[in-house]
């Protein structure tokens, strides 16, 4: 019960953090994350390097992602089991938000 509640403190994730976590389902280095986020978000979210650096440091410190290697001086990160749990919790929240919007008579994109 305690552990479950602890994850709540990460919510809600910012859009940048949400997409970064989702992108790291496969191990990627920083620039690849920026590109993947832009594509995955259909261009709605662009992450600047300063923002990404801070997000990666924070996510790693909290154990939501982990360094898995290095490629030409570029650190490679991947999501952890804890990160997946947080991502899932955010997805559930978003699903609730979507339902609430639908109940107001609006259609999803």
């Amino acid at each position, binding site marked *: 019960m305690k552990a479950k509640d602890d994850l709540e403190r990460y919510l809600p994730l910012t859009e940048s953090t949400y997409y970064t976590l989702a992108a790291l389902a496969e191990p990627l280095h920083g620039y690849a994350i920026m590109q993947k986020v832009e594509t995955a978000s259909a261009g709605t979210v662009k992450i600047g*390097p300063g923002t990404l650096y*801070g997000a990666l440091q924070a996510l790693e410190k909290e154990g939501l992602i982990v360094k898995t290697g290095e490629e030409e001086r570029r650190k490679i990160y991947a999501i952890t089991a804890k990160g997946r749990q947080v991502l899932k919790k955010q997805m559930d929240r978003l699903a609730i938000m979507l339902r609430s919007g639908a109940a107001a008579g609006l259609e999803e994109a």
Partner: protein
Amino acid sequence: MNTEIRTHSKWFWPWQDDKEEAWLEQMSREGWHLRSVRLLCSYTFAQGPALPYTYRLDYFPASGQEKFAEYAQLFRDAGWEYLGELSNWRYWRKLVEQGETAEIFTDRESKLSKYRRLLGFLTLLLVILSLLGSNLLLNARGFDADTPDFIRGVYTFGRVSYAVIIPLYVFIIVKILRRMNQLKIIFE
């Protein structure tokens, strides 16, 4: 090719980083591109064709070579050119399309973090200065008739300096806090 070099001195307060960026962008639009920044607010420019550069300043204290390498790699991969550092301020620029801009911070939280890092450093400095200052004032009580004028002079100079520096630090910190508050309102 002979490149013309020009050096400018211009003062910006730490909360005026956006003004500084705008000034550097204006210089580039006039064909003067920043080469380096040195102490005493000395900016060196090299002449070239007018270019639409976006300049951005980040406050990033050097906490180990490896951290900076990772940080800088992200910026370079995203197309940013590193111009140098002055008291932990990192100067970056990126060539953009005419009329466009680029951002190193794309959300409010991360932009505020930049000022939090700056505040952290300034507050630490203020505490150290205050401790040194109180020591200076306490010692001054030990003066007697034999204390040479020179020593008295040094203490007086020290006290007057502190009377200026400490309020100045507090003023700077308050100004940065106000800038952060302003950002909170503007963003989103």
